[in-house]
């Protein structure tokens, strides 16, 4: 069969999974699109239009594989200014112009644009956007609609709104506030509950479903009016026919004005930065290890934005939270983005009257949570741990963005970073004389392995990082690379962070990425190293928690070696299927049994990105095997797995062991080898023991029972099960 036929066949095989994933994404996209549009003071349908045009256009023309496009949270601040200062129809014209500029960026191959900004400045800008969203929507969430004259003004009013909450008299407003608070609580605590059935529907959709249910409860059962104040209900969800009839006419009359073009520039800048950052983050999670064509994506996003603006929608950008939900639900290619748009259209077609029952505070709670995530204290803490000077950059950008505007904010962030670099090095000419020099040399060393050698001269910071990146991009990520900084006097935080990302990417894709020559720099302690500060924090005073002392006792009892410290050496876990779409942070509390070749540890890993990010801690067991076995995954057969099997995963059936087939869900590429491997003895072993999730990567087994830390008793059970399983396998 030709390669093309094969890929077409693969596409159709994976279609059900992508339809399913697109459906789940549309569940989270619907409330976000409505909320983001309302937060930008555009009609709620504008968000949906952006998501639909984005999904339809980018799915066909885009250059990335797993991303979802739609209205972005980063743009809320700019859109708000554009709409309030220009008016809605002129804002549509500005959106269309920014779409054209975005396309131009794509044609000029400016996908590297986002590399020119120091990462702390970008963080500061995003945090400012988060605060703009949070500040404005917080009041609506609590049933107190106010107007302040600046973003800071809204933030300052927050305590007043909280106090006034207790003196609310209007029953409609009280209900609105209660709905807002409950919705916020759902957003906050949703990821704490690891219930498979609850997790099927994303938190924002729970909020939508519950609030629609609430209004029906009052109407149909209590036979009363919806108790929420009518001002706090979503308004104007039009029928599809109305959308087409009432096509807004973009008003280009302000095109000569300064404020028009400053809006266009801000929209383009933020749209491209948000998209580029999202694409970069999502590429890291792609289980198929593809790399995105960012320039092509920019062109597609630009075209989608022009279309969206023409139809009365917002800017289309690549959005990180929805894209990560897509990956977690098994999306494999751009068709998931397409189906997410199709489902959104279906929602509007079928449920536009129901959607009008959604209370505003519920939607705003989702946005408040989004805003909080962008500006959460964790980010400040992380930046502080990298270095104090990064905190200065962060706050300068943050405050100027809030006070003056996005473009001024990010530019001042760039300026402050440069000044700080000059001050740290006490050397201005180092930067001025060398900024334009081609300071990166790359060649492939001769020999069998052919390691790529990259040497960097003078300095490497956000100013000339793109030169290094250009070279690194030309290397296949399954090859070996050595980056040598010994001729380089200064390497900044942005570069270190990006190199760290490359290191992850290369490890994930089977390559090797090594950074050399920085030991000489350690002399100047002011050197901002991103991950030096991230080294495991040793247990202060050597005091153990209760669990840790019990683990120590258990280790002594079972003659295991106990190590409580965090370690980042987790490469041995990378090639397990389970971790393909997850990022492992570290492992700790290791119980090592050298005799059996097994290792039980607590692990911290994360799933998804941004507001869909969930940090999970679990206890797992890793057993090295002496001989090779097929790769497989076996787990308890449940509703979720049945669901997945509809979506294209295939359970390997065992005709002779119907009970086993019913109770267990077995997955693997090489069906024949697995069938041969699972003989009667092994099947009986699984049937007669407790359920564990067992995975083989060919050379080792990974076992765990639940996605949370295990108790002592559970650890003992895991230990016993693992060792007996190894014996059964070894005896074959």
């Amino acid at each position, binding site marked *: 069969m030709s390669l093309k036929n094969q890929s077409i066949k693969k596409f159709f095989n994976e279609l059900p999974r992508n339809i399913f994933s697109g459906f789940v994404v549309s569940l989270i996209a619907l409330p976000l699109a409505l909320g983001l549009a309302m937060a930008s003071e555009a009609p709620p349908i504008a968000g949906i239009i952006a998501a639909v045009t984005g999904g339809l256009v980018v799915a066909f023309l885009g250059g990335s594989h797993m991303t979802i496009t739609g209205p972005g949270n980063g743009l809320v601040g700019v859109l708000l200014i554009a709409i309030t200062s220009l008016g809605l129809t002129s804002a549509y014209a500005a959106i269309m112009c920014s779409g054209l500029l975005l396309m131009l960026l794509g044609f000029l191959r400016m996908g590297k644009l986002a590399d020119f900004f120091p990462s702390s400045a970008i963080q500061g800008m995003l945090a400012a956007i988060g605060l703009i969203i949070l500040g404005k929507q917080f009041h609506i969430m609590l049933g107190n609609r106010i107007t302040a004259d600046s973003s800071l003004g809204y933030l300052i009013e927050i305590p007043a709104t909280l106090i006034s909450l207790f003196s609310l008299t209007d029953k409609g407003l009280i209900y609105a506030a209660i709905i807002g608070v409950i919705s916020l609580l759902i957003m906050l605590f949703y990821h704490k509950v690891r219930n498979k059935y609850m997790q099927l529907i994303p938190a924002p959709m729970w909020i939508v479903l519950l609030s629609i249910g609430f209004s029906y409860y009052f109407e149909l059962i209590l036979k009363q009016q919806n108790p929420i104040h009518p001002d706090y209900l979503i308004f104007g969800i039009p029928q599809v026919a109305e959308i087409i009839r009432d096509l807004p006419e973009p008003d280009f009359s302000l095109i000569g004005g300064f404020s028009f073009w400053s809006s266009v520039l801000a929209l383009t800048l933020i749209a491209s930065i948000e998209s580029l950052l999202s694409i970069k983050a999502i590429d890291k999670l792609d289980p198929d290890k593809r790399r995105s064509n960012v320039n092509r994506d920019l062109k597609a996003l630009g075209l989608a934005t022009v279309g969206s603006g023409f139809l009365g929608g917002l800017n289309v950008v690549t959005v990180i939270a929805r894209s990560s939900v897509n990956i977690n639900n098994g999306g494999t290619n751009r068709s998931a983005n397409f189906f997410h748009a199709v489902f959104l259209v279906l929602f509007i077609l079928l449920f536009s009257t129901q959607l009008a029952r959604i209370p505003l505070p519920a939607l705003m709670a989702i946005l408040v949570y989004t805003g909080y995530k962008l500006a959460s204290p964790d980010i400040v803490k992380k930046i502080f741990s990298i270095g104090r000077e990064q905190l200065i950059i962060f706050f300068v950008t943050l405050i100027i963005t809030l006070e003056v505007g996005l473009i001024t904010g990010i530019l001042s962030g760039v300026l402050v970073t440069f000044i700080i670099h000059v001050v740290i090095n006490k050397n201005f000419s180092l930067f001025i004389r060398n900024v334009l020099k081609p300071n990166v*040399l790359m060649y492939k060393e001769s020999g069998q392995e052919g390691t790529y050698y990259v040497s960097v001269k003078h300095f490497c910071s956000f100013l000339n990082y793109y030169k290094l990146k250009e070279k690194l991009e030309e290397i296949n990520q399954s090859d070996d690379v050595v980056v040598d900084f010994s001729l380089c006097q200064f390497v900044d935080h942005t570069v270190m962070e990006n190199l760290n990302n490359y290191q992850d990417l290369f490890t994930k894709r089977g390559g090797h990425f090594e950074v050399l020559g920085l030991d000489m720099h350690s002399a100047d302690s002011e050197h901002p190293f991103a991950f030096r500060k991230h080294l495991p924090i040793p247990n202060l005073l050597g005091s153990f928690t209760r669990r840790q002392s019990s683990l120590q006792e258990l280790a002594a009892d079972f003659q295991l070696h106990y190590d409580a410290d965090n370690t980042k050496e987790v490469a041995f876990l990378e090639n397990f299927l389970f971790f393909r779409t997850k990022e492992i942070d570290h492992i700790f509390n290791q119980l090592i049994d050298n005799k059996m070749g097994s290792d039980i540890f607590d692990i911290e890993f994360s799933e998804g990105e941004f507001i869909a990010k969930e940090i999970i801690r679990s206890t797992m067991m890793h057993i090295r095997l002496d001989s090779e076995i097929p790769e497989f995954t076996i787990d308890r057969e449940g509703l979720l797995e049945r669901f997945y099997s509809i979506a294209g995963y295939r359970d390997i059936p065992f005709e002779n062991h119907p009970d086993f087939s019913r109770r267990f869900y077995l997955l693997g590429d090489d069906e024949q080898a697995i069938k041969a491997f699972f003989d009667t003895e092994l099947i009986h072993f699984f049937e007669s023991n407790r359920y564990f999730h067992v995975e083989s990567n060919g050379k080792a087994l990974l076992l765990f029972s639940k996605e949370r830390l295990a108790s002592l008793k559970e650890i003992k059970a895991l230990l016993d099960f693992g060792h007996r399983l190894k014996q059964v396998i070894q005896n074959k």
Partner: protein
Amino acid sequence: MIKPFSTVGIGITFSPNLEANLFEAARLSLFFECKLILIHVGPRTDEKVKTFGTILESFVLKSLDFELVFQEGNPVDVILDVCVHKKIDLLILGALKQESFFKYYVGSIARKITRNANCDILLLINPSVDRVPCQHIVVSGLDDLKTPSTIATAFYIGHQLKTQRITIVEEISDHELVIKTDDDKALKKTNIAKERMRLREASRVMDIVQKIDKDMKSGMLVKSQPIFGQRGYSIGHYAQVARADLLVMHSPSKLSFWDRLFPHDIEHILTELPTDVLILR
């Protein structure tokens, strides 16, 4: 093969480096079996003649033939003038060291000479009284008409100085790669194109090496290394990384005002000398 050099010239002044400079020049003249011409900008005095004579005493014993030229005027003009009159074909110039860092650059006078001289030029970064063996020569293998003679000269020098290793570096500029790396498909194409270029360059260079006398190559490890980067700059970077003792390259055909404003090729090397550099005309 024909001897590339017959007369070596060096400009001298009374500086702390005088002895080291003279020693290097005299040693090279002996190695290349050349006549040495010492150019001094200033009036002739017996005292000066005596000083230079004493320094070179040990070399004269080894049958060094040298001549002193005294001439007053602008240093740049004087040296260029003497180069023409005395038919000097290798001019030695000392580089300056940047404070605090081990970085070398060519001073303004030497730079003017380099740009305008019509003989070969050797830029020395740290001349020394004792001999430092030259173990590794990096030579430019650009696809250029001058390249075969450049490589031949490099082999001649390597042979005379008993160098163990010669690396021929082909600089392939990014502009030759038409494909831009955007995604995996393009990357695959780029890598194939690069591999093809690499093979093409390697066979071109090996053809040149084949034509060189066998005894010139004996006892020498010859390697070719393609690098991807900016012409004239990356080779310096490579020489530095590969810890070469001498970099041999030929000068571009003509330097205009724009070349100085937007430095490229040789101008890059002049601002940061990676090692001793021999620039051939």
